[in-house]
């Protein structure tokens, strides 16, 4: 029996048991579709997080005071000391490092903003002009501490705040009071919405000196550093640690977080999650495989007399084995293809329903789904096909 005839004959058989075949194909397809959609979801979530992270800056390093690690004995703790603060001087030192493109010292607090007969509590960021490019914020209008105005009492308003305080008029050039000080509005941020739980539409930015005076502190909350390139991130981190160790009398009392490290952690978590979810979906494929085995065993039983006849008219055992095997191949193949299409459709629906979620199934998942479906379906048919091939012709023929 030729391969083409085997495929054609088994294809006809699959078609002639319409309902049975449809149900198996559907079970297979749902398994594959589940793998595709769930990995699309997982990968979409991963890409979403990555996008969010790159929206807060690229090649970003964050320097914060204190060690984030447990050390054996911190003498200072016994003596009642707190970790040494980060100061503006530290920030300036770091700004001179060769690996650093720019830096922004950061203080965060809350204060009352008043002006144009309105009053509200706002989150205040104290920093320098580089904060805006480092954090990938955009100014809708105006500027912040432009060259030559570094010492001016300027304030940048978040989009929503500008809209609330000056709904009808131009915000730039207006005078506002923040806490006890007076500022002139020099810029308005473009509306960006929430990113990483921080809404830039409802903040104000003032120069770091004014913020430190307002919050009565000489220490910094964070120093944001932008490395010159992606390759400079790690050298920059080492240089920062070394510089501040030196300026802090040999004490390693700061922590440097790189965006890469955070991103890598999230990436790992979400990748693992995607794999786990795909694994669960793959179980449904195994179940579909067992269904194929069950149905093929029933088919062998139902078609015993037919198998006997095929032997009587000259079919070899391997002809019969191949016929049943080919049937399973058709069913699995149809299931895998249908499942792939269903999965792509499902992912498309997800993307339409949640446009911010890039729910594209990764290529490996689609291939893996199809391959697992084919392999389980085919593996599940081996035993039934063998049963059929080994039937005794005389006994098989006598079965009605």
């Amino acid at each position: 029996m030729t391969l083409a005839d085997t495929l054609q004959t088994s294809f006809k058989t699959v078609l002639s048991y319409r309902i049975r075949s449809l149900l198996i194909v559907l079970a297979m397809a749902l398994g594959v579709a589940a793998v595709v959609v769930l990995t699309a979801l997982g990968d979409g979530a991963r890409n979403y997080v990555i996008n969010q992270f790159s929206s807060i800056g690229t090649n970003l390093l964050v320097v914060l005071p204190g060690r984030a690690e447990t050390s054996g004995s911190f003498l200072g703790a016994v003596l009642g000391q707190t970790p040494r603060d980060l100061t503006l001087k530290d920030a300036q030192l770091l700004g001179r490092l060769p690996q650093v493109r720019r830096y922004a010292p950061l203080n965060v607090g809350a204060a009352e903003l008043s002006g144009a007969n309105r009053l509200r509590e706002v989150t205040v960021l104290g920093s320098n002009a580089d904060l805006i490019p480092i954090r990938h914020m955009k100014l809708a209008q105006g500027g912040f501490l432009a060259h030559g105005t570094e010492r001016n009492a300027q304030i940048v308003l978040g989009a929503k705040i500008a809209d609330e305080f000056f709904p009808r008029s131009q915000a730039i050039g207006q005078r506002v009071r923040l806490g006890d000080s007076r500022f002139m509005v020099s810029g308005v941020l473009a509306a960006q919405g929430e990113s990483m739980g921080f809404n830039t539409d409802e903040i104000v930015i003032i120069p770091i000196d004014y913020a430190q005076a307002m919050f009565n502190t000489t220490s910094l909350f964070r120093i944001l550093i932008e490395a010159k390139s992606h390759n400079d991130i790690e050298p920059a981190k080492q240089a920062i640690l070394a510089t501040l160790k030196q300026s802090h009398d040999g004490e390693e009392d700061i922590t440097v977080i790189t965006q890469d490290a955070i991103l890598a952690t999230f990436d790992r978590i979400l990748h693992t999650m995607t794999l786990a979810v795909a694994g669960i979906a793959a179980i449904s494929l195994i179940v579909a495989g067992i269904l194929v085995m069950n149905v093929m065993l029933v088919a062998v039983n139902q078609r015993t007399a037919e198998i006997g006849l095929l032997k009587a008219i000259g079919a070899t055992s391997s002809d019969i084995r191949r016929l049943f095997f080919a049937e399973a191949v058709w069913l699995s193949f149809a299931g895998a293809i249908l499942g792939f299409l269903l999965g792509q459709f499902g992912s498309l629906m997800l993307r339409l329903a949640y446009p911010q979620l890039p729910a594209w199934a990764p290529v490996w998942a689609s291939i893996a789904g199809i391959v697992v479906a084919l392999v389980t379906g085919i593996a599940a048919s081996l035993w039934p096909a063998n049963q059929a091939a080994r039937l005794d012709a005389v006994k098989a023929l006598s079965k009605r």
Partner: protein
Amino acid sequence: MIRLSAITRTFHMGGQAVYALNGINLHIASGEYVSIMGPSGSGKSTLLNIIGLLDRPDSGRYELDDRLITDLSETEQAQIRREKIGFVFQSFHLIPRLTAAENIELPLILSGMPQEQRQIRVDEALQAFELKQRASHRPAELSGGQRQRVAIARATIMQPSVILADEPTGNLDHQIGAEVMALLENLHHGGTTLIVVTHDRELGARAHRQIAMRDGKIMTDQADDAG
């Protein structure tokens, strides 16, 4: 030419060995028309199955066309079944989901014949067995006589040298049965060896050589002068 020497075949039933065939010696020349008769359990079907290579004897020699069959592999035996032997069964054994034409085509597919040649052969067979009108009907849509005609067409499509018929008229009424026998005898006139197993004396008497079996042994073996 079929030559069986000292063929035995035992079945085990409830721990007891039952001789279905007990030392059968038989020679059937090519072109003979032989009937094998006997009560149920006499071993006539087992003998037919062994001649048709569906079953293997426990001991003895079987030569078909001067070739020792007993030692052949399963695949070689399948090839001989395909090329030299045609089976006709009491219950027709047609595949229900295939049309008459597709059922007839099956042995050709198994032999690996290309589609175009198969088509020609099947058309000829449909013509010869007056099944042209029924070509695309499934077995369920055919009468008993038509089904057996399809089965005979299938058995002869490979132009075998031996036709083995096991109670070919058992499921048919007298009239149709006679027509089916006429078809088979027609094949015999064309030179094919015809071996019919039956417990119908009248049917068996039509053969030119009549073998009677009982308890796995050949009791009588008579040839007509006409044969």
